[in-house]
Structure formats: structure tokens, C-alpha cells
């Protein structure tokens, strides 16, 4: 990726959700009593993931669809930038709460779920509110599995990266021409 792309792409991202979620997650981990640390860090993972999903909304997706730099490069660049910020905020919250590192797998999966949900949605529908779709799998998965943190989450990370990659792929599926 062209290094010159990073700055405008970074500026094009809607950082507002992460700007709100990151301080909240960190403050929550810092302020709540230690006994609630695990729950707060888990909630921080979910909220930061849902906030990071807003980075995938591209207001100029149509205009830039036919440029030589493919869509997947732009979407992955957005993904990485948002993930770095969300990950840093989560790591800080985790450190402040002093909870076990085993929660990291769950946080990574929450992030990937949100990116997969939003990535799929922005592929099909325009508008900022579409990124709310990122929270849907996070909430749905969280509702079903809240009571079971553990290393098993890492197993889901691999397939989810593939789902995100499929969502980020070029708008035009490659299909050989028929003779």
C-alpha cells in the first residue's frame, strides 16, 4: 500500500465512536472495583469492537470503486488502523483492571465479529448507520456465551479473519470470461 494513502485514509475514518468508546472503556476499568474487573474488560472488548466497526463505512466507496488501488487494500487499511486503536484501548483497560490475559482471545473475536458484521453490511448498503450491523453479531454471540471466557475463543479467530477478508474483497468478484 502506498504510504501516502495512510494519512487521508486515516482522516476519512469516522473516529467518533472510538473516541467515545475508548475513554469510557479505560475509565470503566480504572474506576470500578477489582471484583468487577473481568466483566468490565469483557464489556470493553465488545464496545470497542462495535466502535471500531464504524471505521469500515466509506462515504466515497462508489467513487473509488474503479481505482487501481483495490477495495480490499483500503478496507484492510481501515481495519488495521481501527483495530490498533481499539486494541490499544482494550490493552490499557485490561492492564488497569489487572485481570487474566485469557480474555484477550474473546476480545479479538469480538473485534473480528464486529468487523465481519459491519464489513458485510457496508458492502451492500450505504450510510453511517449501517455500521451498527457490527454490533449485531457481537451482541448475539455475547448473549449466548457470556458465561464462558477462555482460550477456546482463539479457535474462532481464524475463520472470522476469512469472513472479514471475504467482506473486504474487491467489489467485483473475479469470474473468468466465457468464450
Amino acid at each position, binding site marked *: 500500500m502506498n504510504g501516502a*494513502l495512510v494519512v487521508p*485514509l486515516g*482522516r476519512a475514518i469516522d473516529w467518533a465512536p472510538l473516541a467515545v468508546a475508548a475513554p469510557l472503556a479505560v475509565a470503566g476499568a480504572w474506576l470500578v472495583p477489582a471484583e468487577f474487573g473481568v466483566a468490565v474488560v469483557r464489556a470493553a472488548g465488545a464496545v470497542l469492537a462495535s466502535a471500531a466497526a464504524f471505521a469500515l463505512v466509506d462515504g*466515497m466507496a*462508489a*467513487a473509488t470503486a*474503479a*481505482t487501481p*488501488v483495490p477495495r480490499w487494500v483500503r478496507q484492510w487499511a481501515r481495519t488495521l488502523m481501527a483495530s490498533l486503536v481499539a486494541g490499544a484501548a482494550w490493552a490499557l483497560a485490561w492492564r488497569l483492571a489487572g485481570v487474566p490475559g485469557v480474555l484477550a482471545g474473546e476480545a479479538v473475536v469480538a473485534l473480528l465479529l464486529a468487523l465481519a458484521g459491519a464489513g458485510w453490511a457496508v458492502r451492500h448498503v450505504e450510510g453511517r448507520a449501517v455500521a451498527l450491523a457490527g454490533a449485531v453479531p457481537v451482541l448475539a454471540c455475547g448473549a449466548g456465551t457470556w458465561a464462558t471466557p477462555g482460550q477456546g475463543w482463539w479457535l474462532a479467530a481464524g475463520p472470522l479473519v476469512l469472513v472479514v477478508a471475504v467482506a473486504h474483497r474487491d467489489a467485483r468478484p*473475479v469470474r473468468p470470461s466465457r468464450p
Partner: protein
Amino acid sequence: MEPTLTVHDLTRRFGRRTALEGVSLAFGRGVTGLLGPNGAGKTTLIRVLATTLAPDAGRVAAFGLDPADREQRLAIRRRLGYLPQSPGAYPHFTAFELVEYVAILKEIDDRRARHDEVRRVLAEVDLGDRAHTKVRRLSGGMRQRLALAQALLGDPDLLILDEPTVGLDPEQRMRFRALLSRLGASRTVLLSTHQTEDVTTLCERVVVMRTGGVVFEGTPGELAAQAAGQVWLTTTPPEGTFWRTPDGRYRTLGHRPPAAVPGEPGVEDGYLLLLGGEQVAA
């Protein structure tokens, strides 16, 4: 001369709806207008030609390259300028920043050359003095010109423009036509439009689409000729659909109303008759 862009037997469906069916066309140097009512398949065709949508069946070739192949698609995109129907924008960017962003995506890597190019295209669309204005502060017409500017980046050999004149004032429209006719002299320009006036004044060739298929292909004069003998002027309102002309007479298409005199057929008459046949005029 070898055509720049060809499509053969193109079909594209969205679920159960067929947007394109068996479309075969070839586009060479010059400006071609794509006319058609809403839902005719213009935008789908434009998207397929702009390499952003894959067809379900059929062949597409631009500069002899196949967009289905990743490398060849990339090569096409390097020579393509594309203005979609709803280009969108980042409101907090300045006009310069927005166009520069697209310039980076168009792989204009040298910073000085990129800035020169951004300034050039902004001047082309008469936005040179607005380069450092935030997009959110630009009027609708200015944003449309800004979108056009990004399509002109890199002096592309193939320009594909979907509804480019929407929101432009008459002066800008004239300026735009002059720009396109100049560009069309040395490259392939394809524009989808609802403005038959644009087609009349600008296009050497016109394609009319209806319900996913091509119903006419020829010069604007040939399209106008489709209405020969079917344009009528009356002094009293005739039956069916008609409109009042500036000289106080009534113009209608199709069967000759009583006491009507023949009128001069135009591109719009030919277009309307092609689309609606008797129904439009009756």
C-alpha cells in the same frame, strides 16, 4: 479503428430481476451518450463497463483487456476515469484533499506531480479558487464538479460518467460540454444521462436502452430521424399527450391529429417514440 471498449451478449441479474439481457456494444473514440428511462439498465451497464460489477454472462473488453482477470482489470483501471451516480464525499476534507486522496488511489505517487494534477483537474471544473474549501461548504453543483474532477485525474483514456450534469447550472453545463467534447476528440467518453440536450450537443453517437436491452444505436441525427413524420403541431390542444411550445402551439407525437402541421423532429422526439411508441404520443 479498433474500439476501446466492447461488450458482447452481456447479462446481469439482481435476484429475479434482469437488469441487462444480451447487450452487445462497441465504443470507440468520441463521446457516446447512453439514454434510457429509470430502470433501463444504464447504471448496471456503466458499472460493468467501469469494472465495479461482474456480469453474470457475456464478455467485456477494454483496451483489449479482460476485466475478469485481476491484473488486466488493474491495467484497465489505470486508464479509466469513473464518475458514479452517487459518488459520495468526505465532508470534512477540503476539495484539494478529496481529489488528492483519489489521486493517491490512482497511483499518482510523486507528490509534486500529484499536486500539479489535482490543481489541473480542479481548474478544469472551475474549482481552482475553492481548493481549500471544506467539501461540506460546497454547493450541490460544486460537489458534482468536484466528483467530475476526480474522474479526470490522470488524463484517462476512457471516461465513464453516470449522470454527470445533474445539479450543474447552465454556465457550468456549457463548460462541461466544452470539456467533454475536447476530451472526446482523443479518447473514449461514455456518459449516461437523462438530458437529451446533452446528447444533441455533445455526442457523436447515442445508445438507447429499455428494460435491460439496447433498442437503438446510432447518431443523434438518426435518433431524431426515428420521429420523422410523427411530430405534429396544432393550434388547439390535441387528444392524448402533448406539450405547449413557446410560440403557443401544441406539439404531439404519433398519429396526426386533425388540422395538424408537421413539426421538425428532434432527438427527444425520437427517444420518446422509441421508448413509448404510440403510448407516449397517444
